[in-house]
């Protein structure tokens, strides 16, 4: 349970700086420090237990399906890292209080920093694979926020993005690895998983797991060749560099490898990949560090190098090497954090980090200089300092491995080279900055920093010395506990002493120090040598890579999507064709067993007429009015077909819709070009389109024929049987529409209503230019309303309305119904618009068509909702027969109310569409002054 508080307190602590923001800078810093300090205290209370091998655990269910639960545990390794995270974290908080300037938003900084602290604690305390990954990604995010803290600076933005991209990619690989581990082991609980190394090793997933896992670890810990993001992360404020990019976050990868050491190590693949990567990183980092003029750059590469060293140790696979690795984690964190802070002080007080300008600072800031030099010496591996001890152990272990078979001696040799390089750059850090003549053109005159800014450095340097001189006393137990957690077995014998006697590792150290000093002294030659090569700017390469990816993607995208409807349509039809016809290929016979209706001449005529007029519609599609005439014939024949094949309702509907459509087309033609070129595409395209059209047509025709000639057992018997008794009507189609499937109809009239609204919208704020003459150049006739047309249309109106009432009322029992009646009414009214014009109608029929739509919809709904009050479901219909003396028996049905809703909606929608378009053009025309 305590472990829970260690995590929770910093989580709460994220809010502290934001809340304390108004109380001043120091208060803000103090407030921030409270939570980690408390957590640290709790952590310290666990010390004895942890050292005794007890594990404090906490677990709570969160997402069992995913295997993600809140599972925490505090063992030696977690303790060690938590100690580093909280301890150095507190020092960084203190340091940052003085580092940040007035312009920087301190609360934001601290909040980000605390977020990061939480993330790191989460990683190290995790006892659940997915949870571990959760916090792992959180470190990437918080690191992004911290690196880009000075977001106005290009290098900060780019550095942050690069770091995020690389570590993010690694994180994804890690997720994959962890999920696979979970899949193989059947659990995501870390302590269970760790005991199942044989299962994992034996599974076929092991290679994939290892590669993906190491990708995650290596990217995070800046291992070669993924190391390049780290130097660019130095655009972050220095406290961030000290905390994230030396002491903690980059160690997350190391932590991960250490954590999973028992599970994944102990194979050749692990040894080769990890140790060689470590070695390469060690050398590349150290070598590059030597040539960096930027103080933080040097430290960054040095960090890379040391991370390589630790990785190398973990890769060696021996237990003692692992112990050495853990030991070096501690030491590096201590000296590197202090070095970064020192560098930050120098930067802060002198205004630059360029070592070519920084010279002889010892005079100006002797205390800081001394502190920095001690830390640097530790980095170089000078005896009596902590760095020396772990380096010694490393040297010893490199002698103890057989990774490369007969060539295994390369490893100690290269390790020594690495050591020498590290001595050289450490020397450079000491000499080039604090001595080496006078400073050149510094923006500020350097001096010692504020008292408390130096405290963190002092603390850390003292630790360097303490660990270096009394290793067993200071870190012996800690190292023990952490190492046993890593190895999950009893530890081999090992001793932490300052002095191991004269042995090969000592000799290697001596060689390294000697060669390193020589290298530094002869650095001019080296710089000259290096100067021949163009400096590789990782950022440029990375950005270039990203940009090239984007360019390639854009090219592919442009190739794929040409923003052409024709192409999209072609693909749609092609896919449809492929998918529909694929099953047909295996059809034995198109014709089925259903008896067919004998044909006759009239039908043949009509079929011929249909086909001819269809072809004409296509043929004339560029002579638009003609195409419209051909289309009308098609519609006419289709209506006749409906009538012939026993569907009078369909015939009526088709006819009325047809006419309204033609009217719409005519309205549209006025504004569209009257003609278009006969050949609108290349001949090849037309042939292609004809091909797909022919195939589509024949497939649809074939399916239609196959369907028509096969018997069908459908649910329709029910409708025929229940139409009269259940729905109260003899027109089964109409009863289906208003009763059995009234819900469809409700949706359908809604569609119509919405379409009218959409059209109204489309016509809003549109400026239409009307042609003053037809396409042949003949100006329009001056007579807007031919007298005979006006007169006859007007006298036909009552008749048409009566007919529509007739069709409406008998719809339930005979062909007809609300929809057709609505269309007839609408057409009759539209005819008045055509014959008399908009003005005339507006004066005589001031109807709000939107209101008509709305009331139609409401009536239809209400007729359905009404049944609720009788305890029935929505749209449950009711009918009954009544008798009135003198009139006789008649029927009343709720379905008729529903149909009335349909009727009104149809009128409203049709008129809103047509009359509105007409109205618009008229007002335009009047404004244009053409009348």
């Amino acid at each position, binding site marked *: 349970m305590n472990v829970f508080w260690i995590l929770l307190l910093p989580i709460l602590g994220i809010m502290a700086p934001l809340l304390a923001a108004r109380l001043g800078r120091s208060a803000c810093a103090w407030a921030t420090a409270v939570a980690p300090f408390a957590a640290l205290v709790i952590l310290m209370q666990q010390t004895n237990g942890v050292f005794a091998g007890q594990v404090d655990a906490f677990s709570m269910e969160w997402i069992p399906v995913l295997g993600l639960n809140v599972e925490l545990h505090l063992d030696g390794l977690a303790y060690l890292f938590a100690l580093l995270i909280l301890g150095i974290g507190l020092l960084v908080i203190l340091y940052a209080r003085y580092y940040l300037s007035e312009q920087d938003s301190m609360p934001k900084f601290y909040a980000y920093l605390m977020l990061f602290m939480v993330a790191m604690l989460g990683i190290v305390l995790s006892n659940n694979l997915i949870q571990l990954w959760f916090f792992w990604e959180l470190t990437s995010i918080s690191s992004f926020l911290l690196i880009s803290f000075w977001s106005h600076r290009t290098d900060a933005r780019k550095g942050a993005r690069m770091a995020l991209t690389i570590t993010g990619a690694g994180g994804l690989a890690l997720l994959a690895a962890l999920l696979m581990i979970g899949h193989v082991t059947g659990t995501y609980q870390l302590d269970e998983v760790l005991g199942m190394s044989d299962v994992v090793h034996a599974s076929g997933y092991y290679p994939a797991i290892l590669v993906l896992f190491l990708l995650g670890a290596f990217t995070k810990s800046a291992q070669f060749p993924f190391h390049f993001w780290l130097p660019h992360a130095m655009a972050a404020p220095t406290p961030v560099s000290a905390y994230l990019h030396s002491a903690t976050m980059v160690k997350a990868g190391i932590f991960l490898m250490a954590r999973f050491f028992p599970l994944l190590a102990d194979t050749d693949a692990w040894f080769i990949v990890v140790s060689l990567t470590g070695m390469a990183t060690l050398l590349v980092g150290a070598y590059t560090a030597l040539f960096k003029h930027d103080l933080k750059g040097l430290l960054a590469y040095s960090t890379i190098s040391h991370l390589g060293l630790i990785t190398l140790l973990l890769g060696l696979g021996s237990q003692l090497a692992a112990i050495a690795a853990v030991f070096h984690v501690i030491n590096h964190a201590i000296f590197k954090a202090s070095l970064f802070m020192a560098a930050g002080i120098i930067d802060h007080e002198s205004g630059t980090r360029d070592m070519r300008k920084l010279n002889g600072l010892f005079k100006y800031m002797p205390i800081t200089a001394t502190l920095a030099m001690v830390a640097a010496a530790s980095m170089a591996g000078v005896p009596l300092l902590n760095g020396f001890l772990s380096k010694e152990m490393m040297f010893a272990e490199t002698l103890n491995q057989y990774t490369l078979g007969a060539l295994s001696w390369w490893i100690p040799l290269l390790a020594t080279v690495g050591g020498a390089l590290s001595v050289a750059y450490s020397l450079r850090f000491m000499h080039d900055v604090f001595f080496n003549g006078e400073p050149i053109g510094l923006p500020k005159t350097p001096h010692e920093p504020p008292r408390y800014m130096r405290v963190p450095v002092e603390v850390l340097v003292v630790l360097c010395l303490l660990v270096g001189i009394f290793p067993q006393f200071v870190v012996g137990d800690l190292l023990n506990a952490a190492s046993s957690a890593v190895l999950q077995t009893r530890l081999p014998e090992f001793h932490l002493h300052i002095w191991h006697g004269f042995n090969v590792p000592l000799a290697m150290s001596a060689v390294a120090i000697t060669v390193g000093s020589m290298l530094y002294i002869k650095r001019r030659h080296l710089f000259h040598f290096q100067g021949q090569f163009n400096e590789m700017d990782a950022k440029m390469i990375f950005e270039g890579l990203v940009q090239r990816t984007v360019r390639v993607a854009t090219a592919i995208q442009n190739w794929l999507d040409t923003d052409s409807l024709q192409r999209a349509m072609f693909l749609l039809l092609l896919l449809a064709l492929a998918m529909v016809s694929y099953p047909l290929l295996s059809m034995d016979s198109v014709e089925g067993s259903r008896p067919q209706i004998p044909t006759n*001449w*009239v039908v043949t*005529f*009509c079929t*011929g*007429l249909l086909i*001819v*007029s269809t072809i*004409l519609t296509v043929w004339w599609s560029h002579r638009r*009015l*003609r195409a419209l*005439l*051909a289309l*009308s*014939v098609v519609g*006419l024949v289709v*209506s*006749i077909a409906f*009538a012939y094949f026993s569907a*009078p309702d369909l*015939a*009526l509907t088709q*006819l*009325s819709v047809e*006419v309204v459509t*033609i*009217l719409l087309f*005519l*309205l549209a033609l*006025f504004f569209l070009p009257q003609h278009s070129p006969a050949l609108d595409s290349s001949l090849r395209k037309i042939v292609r389109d004809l091909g797909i059209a022919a195939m589509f047509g024949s497939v649809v025709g074939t399916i239609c024929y196959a369907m028509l000639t096969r018997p069908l057992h459908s649910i329709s018997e029910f409708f025929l049987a229940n139409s009269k008794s259940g729905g109260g009507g003899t027109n089964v189609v109409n009863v289906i529409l208003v009763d059995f499937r009234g819900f469809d109809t409700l949706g359908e009239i809604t569609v119509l209503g919405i379409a009218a609204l959409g059209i109204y919208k489309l016509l809003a704020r549109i400026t239409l230019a*009307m*042609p003053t003459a*037809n396409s042949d150049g003949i100006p*329009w*006739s001056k007579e807007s309303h*031919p007298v005979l*047309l006006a007169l006859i*249309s007007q006298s*036909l109106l009552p008749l*048409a309305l009566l*007919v529509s009432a007739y*069709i409406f009322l008998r719809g339930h029992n*005979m*062909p*007809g119904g609300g929809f057709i009646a609505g269309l*007839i009414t609408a*057409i*009759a009214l*539209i005819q008045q*618009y*055509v*014959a008399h*014009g*908009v003005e005339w109608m507006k004066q005589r029929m001031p109807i709000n068509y939107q209101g008509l739509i709305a009331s139609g919809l409401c009536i239809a709904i209400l007729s359905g909702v009404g049944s609720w009050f009788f305890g029935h479901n929505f749209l449950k219909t009711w009918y009954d027969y009544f008798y009135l003396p003198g009139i006789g028996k008649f029927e009343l049905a709720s379905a008729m109310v529903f149909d009335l809703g349909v009727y009104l909606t149809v009128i409203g929608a049709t008129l809103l569409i*047509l*009359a509105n378009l*007409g109205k618009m*053009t*008229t007002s335009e*025309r009047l404004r244009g002054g053409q009348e």
Partner: protein
Amino acid sequence: MLATVLLGVAVLVGLALVLNAWRLIIGPTVTDRILALDTMYINCIALIVLLGIYFQTALYYEAALLIAMLGFVSTSALSKYLLRGDIIE
């Protein structure tokens, strides 16, 4: 007998439809085509009425009525389009 007569008359009407369609195709002017279409509407009324007689039902009678109405609307709108461009003004 009546059935034969009906079929014969239907064929006559069908032929008429074809002839009108021919006029629709060859034009030569737009008004010719509109006229042809208008006549085809009327021919279709004949077809529908014959259908009703043949099936001995009054169900198709509204269709005929509607064609009569709608043919008129469509013809007058088409002519209006030729005259004025804008059919509703």
